[in-house]
């Protein structure tokens, strides 16, 4: 029996060699770092001032470095020209409101401070396609998670496959579960100040709204869609966002602004390839990597360039829903943080005492006040006064905590958003 077991172990080790343990991390040496210009130029037909971003590739363990002092111009084949002015962090913003016409082909021209000139292919704005119906649907997704899917349709009459990129901005109401009308007022951290009453903190009625706030979150994924593999002429029930029912975003009222960029197949394939370059790959399926050629290249040198000049037609749509609309009479999702525990930080640290030496009160120990430190750091908020203070705890120890506190976010919604409703916000 024992030999049989050993026998098996040997086999398993052999088999394990075939998969699990074959992939291991290693120190990538002698990687020749190349500094390559990265162009993130996504412009659309919206009439507004628009920006592009220029940066350089950076080494694996460093931080991005913006490209400074570049000349950026957008020229149209109708003779139009728009210049871009450098802002902070490699952002270049159009000097005037961009008003791009669908009949005109545009080219992006960049000259960097090292004298290299780059230009894009001439691109045109695809025909506008509006977002159709958009709704929030309660469903269970394929991972078995219940939640809300934001789905949309659009209609395309061209008869061809169309390609889209999406971004969204979601805004949602946050209501602090342990809101208290009082907030910390004064913190007395000077033991010897004139009143000579030692350390202490006071509370006062709140001056500002802190119960209901509005938080905002932007997508940072590349969300790409196409009608190419669909039998329909447009997207149907396309899921832009899925929110688990445990997500506190949907606790009260939720709004999402979906931005649709209708772009070309080339742009779509560029962004898709880009996504391929970041996903985890199994041992057996390497994606064919390589220098990603976009539609921009250097005109006066052999320099490589990464990035894409995307022109798109823009459409946006906003929608709202309330938690109760989809989950009537059901418990709310858990709050952003756990608010169950009530804290009782001591005013004075353990072992703290003051001794009168030569007529002077000398503090023994160097520890700070746990309560005051947390108040000053903004991590705790007032939820009540300790009636028992100063007193003795059941175990005989002196009760050192004058207040009951909770994590600030449980009491003050401003931890998660703004207490001012955004301009677009509508109730019901």
């Amino acid at each position, binding site marked *: 029996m024992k030999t049989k077991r050993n026998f098996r172990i040997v086999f*398993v080790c052999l088999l394990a060699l075939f998969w699990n343990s074959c992939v291991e991390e290693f120190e990538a040496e002698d*990687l020749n770092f190349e500094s390559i210009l990265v162009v993130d130029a996504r412009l659309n037909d919206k009439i507004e001032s628009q920006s592009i971003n220029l940066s350089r590739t950076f080494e694996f363990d460093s931080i991005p470095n913006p490209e400074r002092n570049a000349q950026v111009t957008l020229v149209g084949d109708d003779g139009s020209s728009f210049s871009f002015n450098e802002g902070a962090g490699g952002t270049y913003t159009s000097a005037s409101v961009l008003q791009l016409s669908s009949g005109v082909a545009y080219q992006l021209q960049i000259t960097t401070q090292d004298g290299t000139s780059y230009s894009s292919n001439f691109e045109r704005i695809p025909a506008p396609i509006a977002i159709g119906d958009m709704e929030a649907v309660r469903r269970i997704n394929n991972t078995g998670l219940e939640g809300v899917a934001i789905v949309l349709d659009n209609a395309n009459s061209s008869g061809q496959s169309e390609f889209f990129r999406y971004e969204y901005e979601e805004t949602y109401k946050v209501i602090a579960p342990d809101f208290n009308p009082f907030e910390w007022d004064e913190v007395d951290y000077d033991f010897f100040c004139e009143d000579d009453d030692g350390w202490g903190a006071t509370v006062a009625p709140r001056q500002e709204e802190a119960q209901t706030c509005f938080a905002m979150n932007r997508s940072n994924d590349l969300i790409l869609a196409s009608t190419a593999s669909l039998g329909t002429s447009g997207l149907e029930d396309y899921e832009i966002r899925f929110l688990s029912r445990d997500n506190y975003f949907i606790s009260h009222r939720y709004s999402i602004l979906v931005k649709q960029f209708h772009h070309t197949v080339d742009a779509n394939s560029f962004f898709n390839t880009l996504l391929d370059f970041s996903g985890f790959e*199994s041992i*057996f399926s390497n994606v064919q990597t390589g*220098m990603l050629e976009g539609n921009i290249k250097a005109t006066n040198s052999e320099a490589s360039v990464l990035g894409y000049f995307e022109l798109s037609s823009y459409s946006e749509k906003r929608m709202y829903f309330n938690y109760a609309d989809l989950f009537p009479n059901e418990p709310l999702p858990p709050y952003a943080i756990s608010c169950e525990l009530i804290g009782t930080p001591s005013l004075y640290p353990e072992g703290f005492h003051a001794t009168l030496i030569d007529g002077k009160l000398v503090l023994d120990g160097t520890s700070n006040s746990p309560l005051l430190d947390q108040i000053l750091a903004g991590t705790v908020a007032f939820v009540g006064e300790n009636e028992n203070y100063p007193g003795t705890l059941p175990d005989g120890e002196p009760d050192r905590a004058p207040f009951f506190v909770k994590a600030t976010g449980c009491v003050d919604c401003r931890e998660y958003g703004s207490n001012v409703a955004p301009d677009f916000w509508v109730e019901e």
Partner: protein
Amino acid sequence: MIAMQKERRTGNSSSIRLVLFLGLMLCLVLKSSAQEENTTIPSDTLTLKAALVQLEAETGYQFFFVDDWLEGKLAPENSSNDDLAGTLGALLADTALNFYVLEDEKRVILLQNTIIYEELPRFFFGRPDSLATEVTNLVEDNRPPPAFFIENNERSARQYPLVRIGKATNNNLKSRYQLRGKVVNRRTGEAVPDLAIRVLGTNLAAVSDSNGNYAIELPSGYNVISATAMGIEDMRREIVMYNDGNLDLAMEEGLQELEGVTVEADAISNVEDTSTGTESIDLEESKNIPLVLGERDLLQVAKALPGISSAGEGATGLNVRGGKTDQNLVLLDDAVIYNPTHFFGIFQALNPFTTEGADIYKGSIPVEFGGRLSSVFDIRTKNGNVEKFSGEGSIGPVTGNLALEIPVKKDTSSLVIGGRGAYADWILRSLDEESLNNSQASFVDVIAKYHHRFNENSEIKGTAYFSRDDFSITSDSLYNYTNRLASLRWDHRLSEKTIGALSVANSDYRFGIDFDGEANTDFDLNYSINESELKYKLNTRLNDRHSLDYGLSAKFYSVNPGSIEPEGGDSDIAPIFIDEERAVEGAVYIGDEIELTEKLSLDLGVRYAFFAALGSATQRTYFNGQPRNEATVQDTISYGSGEVIETYGGPEARVALRYLLAPDFSIKASFNNAYQFIHTLTNNTTVSPIDTWKLSDLNIEPQTGYQASLGLYKNFNDNMYEVSLEGYYKRMDNVLDFKTGADLFLNENVETEVLQGDGKAYGVEFLIKKNRGKLNGWLGYTYARSLYRFDSQFSEERINGGEFFPSNFDKPHDVSLIANYKLTKRYSFSANFVYQTGRPVTYPIGTFRFNNADFVAFSDRNEFRIPDFYRLDLGVNIEGNHKKNKLAHSFWTISVYNVLGRNNPYSVFFVTDNGEVKALQSSIFAIPIPSITYNFKF
């Protein structure tokens, strides 16, 4: 009309068995059969058959015989006798036929040459016979060294039929019979003196005298003799001795009539053959090469030869002389085998016990083959033992294997069946570890081959083969693939000068992925390709100077590119069903081997290849002057069933020239071009089982290529050493590669995802072999480059700016050493060392931020290389003792793969994990892998 014989007799495959047989023969007790009844046959001009039929009617006995034996024979006069035995004896006196009367069943069995023994020989179950022991030693001492021995393909243009000598008689059974005869030069009719006749596997030999007469004692039964002489082409004959007899030999003139040089039969063929770049592997003889997990593996042996490599350890598919993995035609008994490997190329899918060997053509491809640019692997299955039931088996750490050879009709037909399987699955399932519990890793392959020899001029062979792999790479996906093939081949002689082979074959390859993951992407996917081929090839020896090869072939392809179906109600995968693809491929060819002078020979061949893609199908057209993508579709054309979509084709040249600078030193040159109409689609850097084959169509053109090679070949020291130096240059057009990030699988419009570019490959291959002696083996060195170029005016159709770049398998330096040292008869040691330049890889060269996320920037494709690859394997082969009374002959193979524990990366890749870029490498065998395999033979 089949006579079962009680006698047990072996073939020549094992000298031991032969000896056993000899021993038995010495001790036979014979008994003649007698018959009392009176019978007469009135015979005047009766045919022998008629006489027998008449006798059958008269006596009430049932006669068993084969008509062929009696053909054209007349019954002798006065054959009447007073009993059946006497009559039969008289009737058959002038033939090579014997008879046996079964009194109880009232049957008479006629036998060609042989006789029936009425009882088991005395020492059937063991034999303390000193004489036989002596014979044993005698034979064993002369066994050819069981070293691996890869000889250059011997193109034996002349195939001689098996000869049966004499008629066995019960009162004259001997262990040896005398064969005598006269040797003449077929062309001149002159006697050939000094012809050395050897009985293979023994030290029996004789030399013809000045009048060409010879006499030699041959062991009774099956023998193979070789006849060699200066200026005479070597001859090999299979002879079955039943009694003393005559055999006159008409010898062809050899290629060289040179003074003072002894030329061995095939040892010199590497120098003399006209073709370049040809290798031959005998699997039995390569059994000592240490290999991973104790599996004898023809494809691994092939990789140790110059010019043949793979992208990495555990990578399926071979790259021959800088060609892509889809450019090899792998044939198993005339049928294409699409994926000859198991488990990502770690094991071959060919049963080593039933596989005889392979001829590999990487330079001048014979004119009968076509359809692939780089190479042909012509793998043959053994013919079964027609004498005796025998078998071979092995038990290794991961696999078990059993092969049986079953005679169906003695000396005529037999069946070979083999089965192999991996038992990893069972082990995985019996584990408590849950992550492995659901894993699967199993494979199985089975093969059966039947061959039947009708007569000296006609033989058929049929093969059926099946292999299947099931494995899970991740817990949520289950992959499987199967190969299925069947072939039937009829070899026959049409005339004195012409032989023909008619073959039909059908091959099927399919794979599926069953993905049941956590996301909304569950699917079930299926792909299959099926091809049927009909081929007729002929060879005519016009005269001493010309030997013509000609024939035609036709193939029908049917590809089901796959369907993908969502699995479960939640799957967001859109179901895709892609139209079946159909096509026909055909070829006609003719080639001539010409002996221009004694020193100069020329192979000239031309092959016309033809391909037609057939409907029903829908094909797109694209606007000219624009890249092919979704946006540039001009039109969509529908084709009806059987309608021709597009045809391709053209002539292929096969030219090879050899000049003998000296008898053992030659220079050869060759040129050939080829068309390839089917392509693999893979978005991996190496071939994986999920590769799909795509037929050429309206938008995808066939690959074409040509290769020119030049080589020098020299043998030393009586052919003990072979040295060759060969250079080649190759160009390929319309080779497929994929756009970066292309989604190739189940894309209805593959042409929008692929690029067709051109490739060039060149290299020099050096090989030195030692064929004999205690230490033997070879050392090969290859310098080779393999470069591809994809250029276009559109950036999306360009790779690396349209410049040539090294392919994934471009490994300039490649050294292979295989050495085998035979310490004693029982112990031999072997070593296998490989060094290769690391293969090209695309490295990340930095990170960039785009849309608030970090991505990896990659270098130009294949701009960098992974570390060099090297590996040493060692093995010991321990033969069981050679005692005759053992039930089975056995040997142990103990080997250690990757003794140095070199962590050879198989691939290097990079991932972003939590916004951080990590470099990962995968290696298949990073530690030394010991294994022990028990092999047995009975």
